[in-house]
């Protein structure tokens, strides 16, 4: 299902010669496992597709829209941070820029009604344009220095949103009113966010199998060696950064109409990136579906905690504790851990099937320890 799962799975399959009825049994159980997995995925897809038609309660669909926006944002974040290993804690720069690009344009062009949705490409474009200079500065440094610089630049943007006159300062910018039926008001937002999420996952998959994606992952593993093998590291990193930022900006634009107002502390939210990082780590950093899975679990959980514990701090403390738990007990995330478990179980049943005829992997002649 995931790229990581496929890689390890293929690795096992490649040197497991089919042997004996036991081997055939293992293959049969593997095939039935695939069918079960496919059925589960299909059920999940159907559930996601019809969710707001089944659960029509406004409070529930509200959470569903938020969740879909985070699914898409986590997948977009993963295209850069997951593949390149550069952990950005500044993607709220792009989200906020998307929010304000649409807010300011709608206000200044005096757009109303559904016409405001024509501004979505603007949100994406503004974020991509901002990503280039930000990336040119931040991508010169690596690891924790990079993390700190993205946070620093993020706070510059938040300060600008607070202080420039064209952003409306603390009071912000109110979105034009949409004359939609109250009962189904959230549905278009849900499907818009779902569409963006699906597109982002498809893009993640395309990038993962592409030369560009391979270069990103080579940079993650050893950037200097990658350069020594002809990888033009800066353009590759910058492209991924801008692409990821562009999708994040687009989501900011959607979120602005959904929430109805652009305010600095919400549009440029320092917790936004922590959530994205947490979701991606939880589901599986650098995998195709991991960040989406993480968002599907954590965003509703966070919303529920906020509602359940009206004391805001308590829900944040619980979220922090969850982050610690993930790092301690699931450092590689759900999907890679699951893929590894399945692979090692398969290897064990494969060994049983082969019996004690031969060692699992014979070393090539002359290759040592």
């Amino acid at each position: 299902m995931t790229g990581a799962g496929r890689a390890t799975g293929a690795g096992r399959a490649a040197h497991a010669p089919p042997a004996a009825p036991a081997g055939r049994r293992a293959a049969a159980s593997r095939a039935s496992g695939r069918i079960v997995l496919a059925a589960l995925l299909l059920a999940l897809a159907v559930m996601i597709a019809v969710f707001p038609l089944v659960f029509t309660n406004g409070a529930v669909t509200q959470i569903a829209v938020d969740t879909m926006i985070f699914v898409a944002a986590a997948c977009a974040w993963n295209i850069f941070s997951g593949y390149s290993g550069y952990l950005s804690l500044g993607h709220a720069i792009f989200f906020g820029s998307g929010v304000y690009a649409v807010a300011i344009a709608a206000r200044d062009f005096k757009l109303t009604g559904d016409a405001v949705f024509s501004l979505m490409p603007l949100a994406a474009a503004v974020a991509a344009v901002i990503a280039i200079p930000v990336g040119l500065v931040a991508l010169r440094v690596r690891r924790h220095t990079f993390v700190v610089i993205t946070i620093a630049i993020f706070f510059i943007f938040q300060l600008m949103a607070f202080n420039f006159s064209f952003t409306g300062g603390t009071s912000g910018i109110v979105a034009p009113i949409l004359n939609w039926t109250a009962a189904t008001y959230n549905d278009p937002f849900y499907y818009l966010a779902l569409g963006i999420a699906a597109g982002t996952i498809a893009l993640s998959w395309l990038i993962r199998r592409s030369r560009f994606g391979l270069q990103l992952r080579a940079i993650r593993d050893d950037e200097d060696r990658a350069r020594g093998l002809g990888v033009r590291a800066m353009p590759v990193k910058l492209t991924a950064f801008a692409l990821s930022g562009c999708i994040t900006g687009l989501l900011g634009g959607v979120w602005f109409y959904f929430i109805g107002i652009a305010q600095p502390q919400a549009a440029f939210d320092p917790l936004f990136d922590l959530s994205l990082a947490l979701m991606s780590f939880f589901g599986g950093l650098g995998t195709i579906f991991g960040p989406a899975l993480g968002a599907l679990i954590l965003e509703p959980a966070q919303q529920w905690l906020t509602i359940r514990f009206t004391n805001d701090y308590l829900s944040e403390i619980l979220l922090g504790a969850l982050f610690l738990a993930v790092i301690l007990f699931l450092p590689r995330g759900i999907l890679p851990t699951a893929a590894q478990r399945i692979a090692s179980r398969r290897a064990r049943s494969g060994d049983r099937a082969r019996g004690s005829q031969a060692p699992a992997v014979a070393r090539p002649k002359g290759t040592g320890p």
Partner: protein
Amino acid sequence: MTAQLRAERIARAFGGVQALDDCTLTVEQGSITGLIGPNGSGKTTLFNIITGYERPDSGEVYLADRKITNASPQRVFALGIGRTFQLTRIFPRLTVMENMLVAARRGGRPGRLLARAGGAADRRRALELLEFTGIARHAAALADTLSYGQRKLLELASVLAADPAIVLLDEPAGGVNPSLIQHIAARIRDLNAQGTTFLIVEHNMEFVMGLCHQVTVLDYGTVVASGPPGIIAADPRVLDAYLGSGGDGDG
């Protein structure tokens, strides 16, 4: 024979330590050239300067007649110079085949962002090289699962994927068992017979003297001797460089 690669009067200091001082090295086209010297004599620094990882304080690097001083590592590689590292470096979380495809550039259309990694020609060549180095059976495994010796072979194979004209090897025999050393030496000879030029840093004297056509000896960042291995082995200045500086037992 003509000089294919030339480092001319290179100087490089780290703080107060002069790592290289007026160092000139010539690698003839089609040769296997050895670069030897005690630890700290500047061999790896010279490699780093040639391949763009470090800048010299003064001096120039030429590829044939073209000046390539201070070119970036990716540029140096694109010009046909590949290298391995003293501390073997692979991409641990990529599969062995993916490791091979990072450098491949055959038939790819670089203009298309989402172009598939590794076309049929790239994969065929990668598999050929994996077979050539003897690790083809691990093609689908994560590189992280390879043994140290296999990693050395993968690093070499992945550099070869783009068919570099010159290959710089930093201690290819370091830390590997004798039979693998023989295997690596045989591969180098095969490639050299097909026209690849080699520059090799190595402490294993048997390996160097058995393989190289030319040997250059560095000591304190300066060339103290250069010539065919038979003459170098008997040169008193070489013995002095190794034994006089405390004889760190590498010879």
